[in-house]
């Protein structure tokens, strides 16, 4: 099918690495390790061993205790479990929470739901480049603050936050610190043991693993006992019941091992692609790069042209598969909240296009993308009316 389009939407989701797909295949059929890992019998125990080994692979990637990883259906659920779970379990101690409007909807929408439930949320604005000044976090922390959520890599701009400093501040103030690392795991070094983070959300399908599985790291710490969202049996310490999807977890584990091995190569590769694409389009009149080049993960390049309409631009870009803002925003058709919060005016945010690259992107694809982007912008600009004087 890839003959039909050029896929530059790796931040939305990655294809599964063929080696990972092979591992998954071995955990599906009657001759494979498909049994329920909660079962006590031989087949069940073989599945449990596969899960344990996947936990160890993921734990090695992020340097944490494998026993503190919970399997979920994805980062959306991990974020919900972390935020709803901790906020509700600590509500008797205080109801003040802190996050940013530039977080993924799977964070902001949870905080909005908690606001409706009587929690108070402080929304911290980033600098125009998308990065949070630690001083504004420090100013926001109060004696009744229970939880802070700040993502590591932004899914629309690639902006990277200073998790080390932010985590240190939270620890000093005794506040739980949650990091949505869905866009970071396997792409940038992330050392849970070294960092002062309490909860970390991860998703397999951003690092060449399968969709439908994620993880939540929960540090072993007094007062950090999130309430479960789902009830239904003793699995995963009652914090997340349901039959564990062995093939998905085994695939996630394998993807984590590969990411650990390939992280540097992958980074060098996407950096080269990003630079090449930028060189190919930077001369487009009125082009703006959203997010500071210096503080962004180069797997993402987000650009705008003043006054163009986003949906038309997206259609004119076919057969490029790119995103206006995040894929989740695509259904709502309003300018990205992330760019707005960074101070990008609507007339620019409207035309924002996110290119994102990955392990299987070629230089030729990026060259073609530059040609198509220039042509599409010029075609739509040619149609624009001028306001009468």
């Amino acid at each position, binding site marked *: 099918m890839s003959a039909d389009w050029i896929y530059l939407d790796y931040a939305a989701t990655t294809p599964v690495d063929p080696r990972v797909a092979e591992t998954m295949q071995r955990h599906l059929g009657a001759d494979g390790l498909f049994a329920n890992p909660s079962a006590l019998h031989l087949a069940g125990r073989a599945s449990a061993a596969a899960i344990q080994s996947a936990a160890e692979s993921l734990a090695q990637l992020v340097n944490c205790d494998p026993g503190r990883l919970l399997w979920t259906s994805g980062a959306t659920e991990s974020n919900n479990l972390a935020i709803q779970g901790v906020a509700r379990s600590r509500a008797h101690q205080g109801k003040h929470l802190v996050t940013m409007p530039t977080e993924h909807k799977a964070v902001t929408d949870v905080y909005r739901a908690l606001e409706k439930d009587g929690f108070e949320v402080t929304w911290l604005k980033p600098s125009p480049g998308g990065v949070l000044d630690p001083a504004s976090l420090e100013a926001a922390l109060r004696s009744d603050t229970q939880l802070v959520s700040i993502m590591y890599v932004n899914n629309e701009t690639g902006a990277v936050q200073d998790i080390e400093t932010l985590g240190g501040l939270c620890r000093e103030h005794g506040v739980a610190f949650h990091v949505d690392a869905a866009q970071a795991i396997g792409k940038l070094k992330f050392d849970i043991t070294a960092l002062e983070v309490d909860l970390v959300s991860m998703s397999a399908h951003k690092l060449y693993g399968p969709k439908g599985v994620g993880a939540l790291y929960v540090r072993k710490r007094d007062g950090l006992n999130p309430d479960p969202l789902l009830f239904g049996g003793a699995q995963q310490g009652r914090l997340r019941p349901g039959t564990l999807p062995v093939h998905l977890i085994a695939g996630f584990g394998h993807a984590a091992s590969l990411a650990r091995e390939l992280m540097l190569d992958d980074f060098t590769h996407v950096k080269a692609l990003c630079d090449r694409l930028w060189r190919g389009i930077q001369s487009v009149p009125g082009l703006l790069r959203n997010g500071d080049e210096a503080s962004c993960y180069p797997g993402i390049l987000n650009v705008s042209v003043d*006054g*163009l*309409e986003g*949906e*038309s631009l997206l*259609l*004119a870009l076919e057969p490029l598969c790119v995103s206006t803002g995040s894929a989740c925003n695509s259904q709502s058709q309003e300018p990205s909240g992330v760019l707005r919060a960074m101070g990008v005016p609507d007339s620019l945010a409207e035309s924002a296009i996110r290119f994102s690259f990955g392990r299987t992107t070629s230089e030729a694809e990026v060259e073609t993308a530059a040609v198509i982007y220039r042509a599409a912008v010029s075609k739509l600009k*040619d*149609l*624009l*009316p*001028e*306001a*009468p004087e």
Partner: protein
Amino acid sequence: MNVDPYSALTRRLFSEPQHRAPLAGEPAAGVSVYMDTQGVQLRLSATATDGVLDTLTFRVCGCPHLIAACEWLCRSLEGKPVAGLSDVKPAAIMQTLAIPVAKTGRILVLEDAAAALGAQLSATPPA
């Protein structure tokens, strides 16, 4: 099952708009209306002879459906009586191009612009 939000006709009209109006700075004959509402900027321009539209052209900043609708309207009305401009049927356009109801507002802007242009042409003394 069709999950393509654009009909084949919409795609064709969008990709080959033949009725782009000259820019404000470019030499142009005839009359023109400009609207900026509902997140849409639209300019319709026309020349007419003896109550018949010689040219009908547009410039627009809007979604693919609106661009296609503009192109479709220009193709439909050129060579036809000016009165057609006052008789644009949004529902018919939307059905022909399979435009989702959520976009009705934008097509109504086109209807308004056409009507305004028709009124201007009727008010203009014959050339």
